[in-house]
């Protein structure tokens, strides 16, 4: 268990980083399905159609969580109570549901 304690950090951070990127609409790249191409810059919707940012949010969450889990000392990771690993995503789910309520309430 201790050998892979850093997995706890990765799992706790992934959802948080993903949510921060989606909340602020940050993305290092976007995919334009109508053009079938990735772009580092925002293209006008009239020419390129709608963009997909989800891929970029996943990549950002993966890269940042991986870097953090490797940088944080293993001893710290071992000290994280196991309960935090499921409590953090439960809180995150509640935040996401609260944020997304605007789709259902006018």
């Amino acid at each position, binding site marked *: *268990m201790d050998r*892979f304690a850093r*997995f*706890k950090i*990765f*799992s*706790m*951070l*992934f*959802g948080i980083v*993903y*949510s921060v990127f*989606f909340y602020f609409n940050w993305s290092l790249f976007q*995919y334009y*399905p*109508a053009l*079938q191409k990735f772009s580092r810059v925002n293209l006008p919707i009239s020419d390129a*159609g*709608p963009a*997909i940012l*989800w*891929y970029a*949010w*996943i990549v950002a*969450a993966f890269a940042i*969580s991986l870097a953090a889990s490797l940088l944080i000392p293993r001893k710290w990771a071992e000290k994280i109570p*196991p*309960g935090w*690993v*499921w409590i953090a*995503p*439960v809180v*995150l*789910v509640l935040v*996401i*549901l609260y944020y*997304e309520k*605007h*789709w*259902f309430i*006018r």
Partner: protein
Amino acid sequence: MLHVLVAVTLLGSLTHQAFSFMRRTPRFSPNSIVNRYRSVHSPTFTNTIIVLFLLQIVLGGLLYPRYRLDVRSTLEDLQLRGANGLFEIKEHFAAVGLGLLPAYWLFWQPPLLPEYAATRKYLTWLLASFVWWNFLVGEYLNNIKGLYP
């Protein structure tokens, strides 16, 4: 089609594992379908569930462009904001679930220590809820044209 088949397999495996945490109830005989369903050797499901979940993410990611161009624009034309919201939540749950996989794997590693039983249970239930939500929303959106003529 492959996306649905993988989803059903994942749903079955995760539901089996999630049910394994249920207490054996004396109301049913040991040979009842309820007790047999929950008495599977759940650790054997773990790696399969992780592979299926990753496969689902890849397949979902490949289908996403078609959804964005065809389905979402239809939903917007029909002013079905709620349906769009359901999909938004689906994509967030898929991402949060993806991030949970390393911890899920870690807490299912043998020997299954009793002090981690609660974490194991709640991580499994969380993943199962995400997969159930995503399956039901996916099916709903897939059939939405028939539901709203």
